[in-house]
Each structure stands twice: as C-alpha cells, then as structure tokens.
C-alpha cells in the first residue's frame, strides 16, 4: 500500500499546477461550507437565545387547545389551581429544568386619558419571570430594569409608547373583561418601555400577576401558560419527551387530554428561519459535493488519458488490475485530503480571527448583535468525510477504466 501511496504522490507532483488548482478548488469549497456552517450556526444560536431567553422560554405548557386560540387570549382556557399543582409537581422531578414562570395572558383597553388602544399583556411574577427569561430586562429600553416591575406598574411595548405618546412615569388605565364578561379598570404607572421582538408575545406589555388577578377578578390560582427554562438547550428533546409523556397522558373526565406541551420551535416563527438556514447549509454541502466530484473526476479522467501508455506498460509487466485501480483512487484520495486539510486549517483560523475581531451585526430591529462563530468537531468531521469520500468516488470511474484497459491497446497509444 505504501508503494501505491508513494507512486500516487509522485504522480500528483508530476502535474503540480493542475494538482494545485484542483486542491485550491476543494479548499475553497471546504472553507465556504465550514465558514457558512459556523456563521449561520452562530446566528441561529444567537437568535434562538434571544427568543427563548427574553420571551418564550424553552418549553411552554398550556391547557389543551389554548395555543390554537391564543390570538383571542381566552381566559376560559387557563390552567386551574389543581392542574398547576400537578405541573409544578412534575417539573420538580425534572433535573434539567432551571426555572419556570407562570403567566396570565390577557387583552385590555389601554388609555392615556386622551386616547385609547388595545394592548396584549403578560402578567408575571417578576422574580420567576427573570429566572425563566433572563434576557428580558435587556429589552427594557427606558426605565428601571432592576426587579422588573412591582404591583401597580406596567411595562409597555415601545410601539404603543410611541403611538400613544406615553413616557416612563406616566399614569395610564387598563380596562379588561374577565371571563364572565364583566368589565373592570385599574390605574398603572409606566415603569418602562419594552423593546419589541419578532414572534408571538414579542409586542406584549407586562404587568404584575397580582394586578392581573385583581383586574380580572381572579380569586383562585389560575394561569394561562407556564414558560420553562432548561439548564441546557441541548436537553430540550429529552425533557420535552418526558413532559409529553407525563402530562400528555393526563385526561379529564371526558377523556380528553388536559395539557399541551410545546417547545419554542413549535411556537416561534423563527424556527422556520432556522430550518431554512439548515436547508441552505444542506444545499451548500451539495454544491461542495458537486465541486469536488466534478473537479476530481475531471483531473482523474485527464490523468488516465495522459498516462494510457504508462498504464499499458505497468499492466504488461504484471501489475494486477486492482493495483492499477488503487493507484488512481489513491491519487484522488490524496487530492481530497490535501484540499480538505488546507481548507479546514484556513477555516479554523478564519473562525478564530472572526471571534478575536468581535464582528457585530444588525438583525431587524436588533442592533449590535455580536457574531461569535463556532464549529463543532462533528461538523468538521462530517465535511471532511464527505469531501474525501466524494474524492474517492469521483476517482473510481477513471480508475476503473484504467484498470480494465487492454495492455496492447494502451501500449499502442501515442
């Protein structure tokens, strides 16, 4: 085998410029794919982090059917005290759960005493909410961030603040219907202005849960959703499956499921963007495969054509067809190795440089997001394996042709 590698290496150096060009092409392909994976992965992780850590949490639990009618914020589909207790008991058994926050979601009329508009609100227990959504305070554009809010205070979305010309410290009134249809109003002081983000609930205001209960005249324990934060997002599939199994199997007296459990992926439209990024990554990989396939095949076809006489000679002096096949396959393999090795080194250096230079970017209304590209060993190994495998596959046809060549015909070739 060593001899085949030695001969293959010599043959590659025989046509230095061609080998260099082909390897460069493979290198460029590998660099493009690895950088795309690392940058898009960084972007994805950043956006997922923003969405889950400042609003959604990783998993949400609702009463069955709530999510389907979330646009109308139905108060008659809230979880009851007994159901909440059951969920709390199950969450206590899950080691992977870092924190959770109970929320009442409601719609109300918002008045600044001059104008009136609609507002959607999340009513939360501030301490729990800050644990379940640790980046929430980063969304407070104006006003005090510490402790989020107190009873009697409201965080209003920036679009309403701008449209209604309301500032921090202003008094406003919220008027809401409870689930029986009776109307109630309550005064609030604007504690802060909340930055809007894309996705469900991204433009909601926020009040204390005790205020919401008073406004809606809720006496017993009752919440619309429970947002859960995990210690590690990689545990999401396992925890989700466990909660699904435990909560999904619970039925009411009519034999219908009581709870519904959703991951952030089901709730946020960004998941589709994330899926699109994955799809683009897949197509970029296909392009890489095409580049490697065409370039290696082209070079190997040329190599066989140019060395027909030589193939005839080694065949005549007794070289077995499988060794001739091996010789050309190894040439393609080595070219793949060369391009991949250089490409991987360049990619890793580029990623390190990007991290060192702290590149920031804007996404939608979010500015100054810090790009921190990383690439996992699995991705590198996968790309390297794909390229080398394709290099070998691309060499097979020309190598097969060389090994099957009739020595007499080959020796006559000029």
């Amino acid at each position, binding site marked *: 085998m060593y001899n085949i590698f030695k*001969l293959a290496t*010599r*043959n590659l*150096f025989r046509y230095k410029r061609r080998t260099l060009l082909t390897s460069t092409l493979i290198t460029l392909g590998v660099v493009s794919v690895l950088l795309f994976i690392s940058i898009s992965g960084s972007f994805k992780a950043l956006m997922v982090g923003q969405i889950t850590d400042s609003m959604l949490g990783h998993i949400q639990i609702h009463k069955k059917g709530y999510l389907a009618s979330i646009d109308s914020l139905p108060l008659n589909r809230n979880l009851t005290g007994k159901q909440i207790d059951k969920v709390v008991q199950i969450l206590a058994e899950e080691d992977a759960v870092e924190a959770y926050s109970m929320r009442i979601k409601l719609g109300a009329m918002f008045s600044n005493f001059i104008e009136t508009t609609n507002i959607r609100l999340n009513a939360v227990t501030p301490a729990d909410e800050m644990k379940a959504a640790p980046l929430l305070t980063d969304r407070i554009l104006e006003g005090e961030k510490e402790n989020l809010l107190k009873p009697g205070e409201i965080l209003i979305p920036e679009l309403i603040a701008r449209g209604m010309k309301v500032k921090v410290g202003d008094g406003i009134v919220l008027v809401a219907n409870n689930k029986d249809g009776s109307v109630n109003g309550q005064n609030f002081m604007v504690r802060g202005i909340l930055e809007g983000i894309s996705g469900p609930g991204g433009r909601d205001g926020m009040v204390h849960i005790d205020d919401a209960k008073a406004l809606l005249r809720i006496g017993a324990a009752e919440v619309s959703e429970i947002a859960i934060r995990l210690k590690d997002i990689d545990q999401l599939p396992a925890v989700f499956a466990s909660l699904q199994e435990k909560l999904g199997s619970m039925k009411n007296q009519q034999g219908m499921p009581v709870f519904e459990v959703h991951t952030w992926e089901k709730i946020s439209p960004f998941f589709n963007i994330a899926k699109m990024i994955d799809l683009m990554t897949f197509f970029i990989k296909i392009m890489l495969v095409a580049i490697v396939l065409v370039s290696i095949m082209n070079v190997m076809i040329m190599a066989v054509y140019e060395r027909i006489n030589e193939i*005839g*000679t080694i065949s005549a002096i*007794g*070289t077995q067809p499988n060794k001739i096949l091996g010789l050309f396959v190894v040439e393609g393999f080595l070219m793949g190795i060369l391009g991949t090795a250089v490409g991987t080194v360049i990619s890793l250096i580029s990623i390190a440089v990007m991290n060192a230079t702290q590149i920031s970017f804007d996404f939608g209304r979010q500015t100054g997001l810090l790009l921190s590209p990383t690439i996992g060993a699995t991705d590198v190994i996968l790309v390297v394996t794909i390229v080398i495998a394709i290099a070998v596959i691309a060499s097979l046809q020309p190598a097969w042709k060389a090994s099957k060549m009739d020595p*007499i015909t080959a020796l006559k070739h000029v």
Partner: protein
Amino acid sequence: MSVVVAEQLVKTYIAGDIEVEAIRAVDFTIEPASFVSFIGPSGSGKTTLLNMIGCLDPPTAGRLQVVGQDITTLSRQAAARFRGEHIGFVFQDFNLIPVLTVFENVEYPLQMVQSWPTEARKKRVMEMLDAVGMADQAHKYPSQISGGQKQRVAVARALVTNAKLVLADEPTANLDKETANMVIDLMKQMRNEYQTTFVFSTHDPRIVENVEITFALDDGTLHRLEKPAGGAYV
C-alpha cells in the same frame, strides 16, 4: 523443456465486417537461453505473435505453451500474474515510468508485482543495475538519462525478476547505431550470464545478425530461416 511451444496457433481479428487472419496456424518452438528474432514486413504479424507469447493477447485457436504452462485460457488476472512471474518486456520506446528514478523503475516489478522483501529487493536491483552498467545513474530520473541508458534500464527491469523469457519489440528502433550495438551486446551478455531466452520482433539487421534463430513472418505464415555460414540471412 522448450520455453515456448506453439502448435497450430491462429489469431484472427474482426475489422468492421471483415475477418483478418493475422497469424495462420503456425508451429514453432523456442529453446531455453536462445536468442530468437521474428522478422517480416509491417503488418506481417510479428507484434501479434510477440503479444500472444507475452500473454497480452490470447490466441483465437491452437495451443501455446510458455515456460511449461498452457497460456491460451488464462484469465486477465492470471495472465498478469504469469507475466509478472515469468516474462520480461523491453519496449521500443523504453516505457520507463517517468516519476520513478532509475533504481525505482528496476525495483518496480519486485515491489509492485512480486512483493520481494526490502533488503533482498534492493540487493537485486543494484546487482542488475551493475550488470547493465547503470549503478552510478541509479538516482536519476528517466528524463535525465539518454535513450541508450533508458534501454539499459529497461533491460535491467525485464531481467530483475529472473524472468525465463524476455520479449523485446523493436528494442533498437529508437537508438543510434552505436547505442543499438551496445544494447544488443548487453542483451547477449545478459543471456549468457542469466540463461534468459530473448525473443525479438525486429526490422533491425544488426539484431538479426546476432540472433541464433530467425523466424520470418509473411502475411501470417511463419518459416524458419537457416543461418548461412557467412552469417547473413536470405
């Protein structure tokens, strides 16, 4: 035992719709350590005959035995193995592998075909290079040596495996007179030293003068020429 025994050997080609009989039921034998040439005009079938003896082209009919083995029905792999073990080739264009040095070219059959152990291989290669007077050029590449030197290396490569039979197709065609004479002398010397049978396909009268047996081919038929006392064939 004869090195080559051919009985009623036939080779037919199909060219389009026409069947061409390149070799027409020829019989001949070649004895060990002999110096034999096949002569004849272009298209007479010299190279075809050499290719059949060399296990490169199977005969259409008849029996062909080389170093005691019937080679008419060998598979592609078996034919390659047989060539690697028993037959050496010397080509008109030398056909050295350009990316290998002189040493490595001679080493190639031992390494890639016969898998000799390293020490024995290196010793044998140097012995052959010494024998053909190319030991001092061992580390040069084919592009760095002359045509005559290339053919010396090709002879060394053909003999390095202790081949019983060396087939040489027009070995002096691309050499000048002086170099051609040196190569012929070398091959004769090798024959004497290693008892190898050399079979040539040639137009070169210098080779014909030096061989002991000459077969003339004409339109696929073969007849042995008797060497006159003066040395010149008629």
